[in-house]
């Protein structure tokens, strides 16, 4: 029987060594491609009619658009308008990664810390560079909230600096850990069912209990998949606002 962690294994599909680096196309990459194809498909195919009164797919596409647009407007401010596609892509990438992972036998690329860390680092670097481009060295005032008394400054500044540099870590670990834990738990309960089923008639009946548990867990995971994508995009918006509107 497959262990609960086997679902996270990277399987090479096309070997692709580039200058000493192994850039193979793997099951992880395959799911990333599937995620962007599905997301792009939903938006482009859904909007093909450009109907005044939207159908089902168009409603989904519009809802997604308006949801993220509202989130950016509320949490990153009006100035963040040019960065809406960036936040939208982040949200959609993570959301589709999470949701695709819920399909049995599928791979969840957002359950890999390196993927979430790469995304979080991208957000972090983007926001940091943007802050310096916009405000120059004034951006460093971010570490000293206005009105801080000088005798607290020596304490506040290190804390602010640490909290700033912890951002990519917390952002990536939050998503990774949620996906990892949820999917592992689903597999563990599924494993209980299989083990129990091997123990005869009583086991067959008893094995239904973890199945019921898994049904409930699956619903929860569905929620977590959406919420984590939302949180990832939301925090990116908050960081973006820090860079755009220096307090």
């Amino acid at each position, binding site marked *: 029987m497959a*262990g609960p*962690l*086997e679902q*996270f*294994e*990277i399987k090479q599909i096309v070997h*692709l060594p580039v200058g000493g*680096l*192994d*850039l193979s*196309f*793997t099951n*992880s*990459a395959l799911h*990333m*491609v599937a*995620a*962007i194809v599905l*997301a*792009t498909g939903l*938006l*482009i195919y859904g*909007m093909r009619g*450009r*109907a*005044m009164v*939207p159908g089902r797919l*168009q409603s989904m*596409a*519009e809802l997604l*658009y308006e949801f993220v647009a509202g989130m950016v407007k509320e949490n990153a401010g009006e100035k963040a308008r040019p960065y809406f*596609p*960036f936040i*939208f*892509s*982040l949200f*959609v*990438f993570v959301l589709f990664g999470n949701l695709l992972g819920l399909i049995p036998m599928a791979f969840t*690329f957002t*359950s*890999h*810390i*390196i*993927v979430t860390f*790469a*995304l979080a*680092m*991208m957000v*972090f670097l983007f926001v*940091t560079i943007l802050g310096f481009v916009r405000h120059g*060295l004034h951006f*460093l005032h971010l570490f*000293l909230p206005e009105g801080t008394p*000088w005798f607290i400054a020596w304490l506040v*500044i290190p804390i602010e*600096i640490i909290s700033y*540099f912890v951002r*990519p870590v917390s952002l990536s670990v939050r998503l*990774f850990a949620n996906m*990892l834990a949820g999917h592992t738990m689903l597999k563990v309960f599924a494993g209980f069912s299989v083990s129990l089923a091997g123990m005869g008639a009583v086991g067959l009946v008893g094995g239904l209990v973890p199945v019921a548990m898994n049904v409930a867990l699956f619903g929860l995971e569905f929620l977590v998949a959406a919420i984590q994508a939302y949180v990832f995009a939301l925090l990116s918006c908050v960081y973006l606002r820090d860079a755009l509107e220096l307090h």
Partner: protein
Amino acid sequence: MRIHSLKRWSVCAAVAVLAVGVVAVVDPAFAQDAAHAVGDAATGHGGEHHSGGLPQLNPASYASQIFWTFVTFGLLLWLMSKVALPRVGEVLEARQEKIANDLDKAGALKAEAEAVMQAYEKAITEARANAHKVIADSVAAADAEGARRNSELAADLAQRARAAEERIQAAQQAALGNVRTVSAEAAQAAVERLVGVSLGADMVGTTVDAVLKERA
């Protein structure tokens, strides 16, 4: 001055931490060490699994995963910003515009309807006033006509009554005259028959007159 040195310090710290982060992502050896350190802490017993721990912490796949993450995300970002999102935005904008236009049109139509309603009500009021006036005029005219005809009739009747009275009086006179003549002739004839004397007409006439006067 304090702020200035602070800035410099912070820049140094920022560069240092960023550098560490970038090295961790790019350099597999560094990442491997870090991963092992985390991995040992995270999974105390990964014995049953053949790779010995979380596949997430095996740095062999890191380069490929980072590469494909950026390739796919970059592609998604490009598709979204250049193709998909402008389309959705256009449709939403067009709808917003249509709704605003329709609302404007509805407002204009409503104002128009109200104006028409007011004009109608004004016309109705005017017509009503007109009708009242016409009715009052007609009633007044009819009253006047009636009164005129009444007085005419009264005058006519009075004249006729007078004429009739005159005629009656004349007839009475004539009748009275006739009575005298007839009485005188009857008295003359009766005297002649009874007494055999023929009385003179003057004497009979005088007597009849006297009697008539007595009776009257």
